[in-house]
């Protein structure tokens, strides 16, 4: 059974985390019902930043009536102010067996990415939940907020274990059933579902959250360096394919992979979903930083 070689200390790299301090996630409007935090909420509240007026309705708070307007116009309007709440960030790292194969395993980069995003969210008082998935989805950490939670997040991330094959549909069905408050769902995966890109996109469409897709890739995904006659065994399903790595076969493989990649990209664009292709053989932070143009990422 493959297992991640990461320990909480490996993930909890102070320099790595310090470099994330300047990054922010700015959601447009977070759903109502959250805790008071730094994200603008769809709700109107009692903040200090003026947002709008609206006519008085019985039951409104008299303290919000703009008496200057009443004096000039003779009509009663209420002054509305911005409400600031937190953004729930749900981290869904893929823990299927494919993430643990090869060297370095994709799970390392995936967990580092998850920790980085968790760190950013916690820094801005957003809540973070961890839901590893593979064949099914589990709850490693229910959404929690507070900068002091980062170490716990690291511990939960390092404790994830391989979960067989990837089944996006089943996992997301489980996630949806939790009826969590709308937030940002970060799916960190290689997106290699036995059902192909169609199964992936179909499953993603069921998520009623803002999405950020982190695709863990390596160069050999597009151009495998294989030679000879091989019996390729799927590490998740055990299915075997006899392959003779001829030029024609490699060309056909590249075409097939390109279609997969294009499908995922088109899906992300069509839904205005963030998609980060993270090379697992490169440093995580520089690649992650590309998401945060001028220091912030707006899902």
């Amino acid at each position, binding site marked *: 059974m493959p297992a991640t070689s990461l320990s909480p200390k490996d993930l909890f790299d102070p320099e790595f985390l310090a470099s994330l301090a300047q990054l922010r996630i700015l959601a447009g409007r977070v759903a109502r019902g959250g805790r008071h935090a730094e994200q603008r909420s769809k709700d109107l509240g009692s903040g200090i930043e003026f947002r709008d007026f609206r006519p008085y309705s019985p039951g409104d708070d008299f303290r919000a009536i703009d008496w200057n307007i009443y004096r000039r116009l003779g009509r009663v309007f209420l002054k509305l102010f911005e409400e600031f709440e937190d953004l729930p960030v749900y981290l869904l790292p893929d823990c299927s067996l*494919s993430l643990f*194969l*090869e060297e370095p395993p*994709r799970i390392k980069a995936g967990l580092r990415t998850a920790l980085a995003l968790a760190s950013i969210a916690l820094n801005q008082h957003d809540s973070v939940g961890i839901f590893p998935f593979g064949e099914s989805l589990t709850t490693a950490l229910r959404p929690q907020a507070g900068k002091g939670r980062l170490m716990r997040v690291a511990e939960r991330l390092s404790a994830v274990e391989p979960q067989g094959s990837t089944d996006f549909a089943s996992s997301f069905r489980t996630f949806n059933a939790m009826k969590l408050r709308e937030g940002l769902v970060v799916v960190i995966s*290689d997106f*290699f579902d*036995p059902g*192909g890109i169609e199964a992936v996109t179909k499953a993603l469409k069921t998520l009623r959250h803002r999405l950020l897709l982190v695709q863990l890739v390596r160069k050999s*995904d597009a151009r*495998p360096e*294989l030679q*000879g*006659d*091989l*019996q*390729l*065994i*799927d*590490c*998740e*399903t055990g*299915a*075997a*394919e*006899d*392959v*003779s790595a*001829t030029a*024609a*076969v*490699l*060309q*056909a*493989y590249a*075409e*097939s*992979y390109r279609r*997969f990649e294009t499908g995922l990209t088109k899906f992300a664009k069509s839904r205005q979903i963030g998609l980060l292709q993270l090379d697992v053989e490169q440093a995580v932070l520089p690649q992650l930083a590309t998401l945060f143009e001028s220091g912030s990422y707006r899902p």
Partner: protein
Amino acid sequence: MNMQFLSWPGFLLGGAALAAGLFFLQRLRVRHRPLKVVTTLFWREAIDASRARVLMQRFRHPWAYAFILGLCLLMWFVFSEPRASDDHGPQYLLIWDGSADMAQGDDFDRAYRAVAEQIKALPQDRRRVLWVGDRTRTLLAPGEESSLFAERAKGLLVARSPSRVMECLADALAVEADARPVCLVASSVALNPARLDLLPPGSSIHAIMSRNDSPSRGLGITTIGLSPAQSGAFDRVDVYLEVRGDIAADRGISDLKLWLDGQPLTYVQEQGQQGDRAWIYLRDVLARGQLLEATLGDVGYPARKGSSDPRGSRARLRLPQRTRIKVAVSAKLPAALRLVLETDTALDVVVVAAGKSASLNADVVVRIAGESLALDLPFFELSPADRQTEAILVQHDGDLDSQQALLSSFTALGLDQIDASELATSMGRSIEVGARPGDRRGLSMWWELISDEYDFRESRGFPLFVAKSMRWLAKIEAFPARVAAGEAPLLAQGVAESKGLAAFRDDNGEILVAAGTTFLPPAAGDYRSLNAAELGEDQISRLSDSPPGPNDLSVSLFAPSSLAPVGDSAALGADFDAPGASGNLLTWLLFLILGLLLLEWSLYSLGRIP
């Protein structure tokens, strides 16, 4: 098993078929190396997209193909052993001489080794191996496995017969004239150049056995034979024995032990020695049908494997049965005739007075016509000329025609010794010889022929006529002058001819039949004449129609090389070189194949070839 019949075109066709088969197998043959990957999703699609539509595109690993093809072709070569112009190659005839001459030294074993060596080198389907002893035996027919040779040669011994290599060569070259076989002779007997010249021109004959330069390791009896006693004794014979081989001061003819019916024989011996030959004469051996046996004891050659009979160290010969003929003569017989009878050493003459009968104690009676003397015995009568027309009247027994009986016994009676024309001239009347049937043999002659008026009794033919007549009347067959293995029996009358069928049983119980030809005893030993009852039913009718054949024979052994000088082997072809020692090449090829197989296995294990 292999395909030694396969020609080069056949081999090439087989090789091409192998190459084609391997070519297709190479396309199909894929050795998949297991490899675990994150997903086979894209590979599955790639395989579907790039699946080969043409078999040619699947051909891979050309070097591996070349290697395996070479290996298979090598194995095919070894298996098929292709032959160039196989059908037209020469046939080889290997002749292993098993005659008594080969009893010298270790000649017999050296010949065996020489033949075995050639068998290994010669192509299996074009060589025939014959052992030529007292008869010819095919040890290996063309195509038979060489390993059978040792098994079939295990029980072979030197035969008590002269060398028949020349006869075998002549027969083989005559029968297989078109094949023009190459004859390879393993024999220590020098072949007679004069007889070699009689073989078909262009015959290829080679000696494959070198002369024995090393001292031989024993003695062998090469000749045993008998002849009438030089002393003239009718009932005695002279016996000749010859040994050849390693004759030394402490080893020679003195080692020869003789037995007569199992009793040691102590006759005075005459002996001589020349080179590797030594001989002995036994004079005046009483001939009573005894078995004469000669052995060499410990100085003989050791027995070959699988046999308890030391070869060449024992010889046997049965002596003839000879007893003097008892002749009863009338007291009235003329003195001239009685004198002739009394001087014949073969006869015991008893004078019988008139009126007495000597029939019980005599074999033949000699009387005057009209005397009642031993009327139941074969007779020799003197008859007055006026009482019978013929000067000599022969009475024969049996159912034969009189004329035929007279002709067949003409020589035996000594009639050929009589100068009838001179006798007729002196007598003034014709001299006729007649024959008539009777219940016993008899001979009636004019009294006047031996009277003082004529000189017949003074002639050379008279005693011969009387002596032969006595033997004919007593039914004493002429003593064989020479009865030797491989030769027609030479009787006193000449070569014994058998126009009909003669059958004999030899020492080993085998029946030998000579139909219409002269019987040639193949080996020394005793041959008992068989009658119709003893022979198979299918031969009875033929035998009953035949005139009587020769009686039992005691055949001597006279190896011709010991009797008649012959030339050396210069007339033979040059040293024979076996065609292509393919056995060695095949051995090396097998080693090469083994090495290549190991190399292939190692490459396969290393994953260097599929």
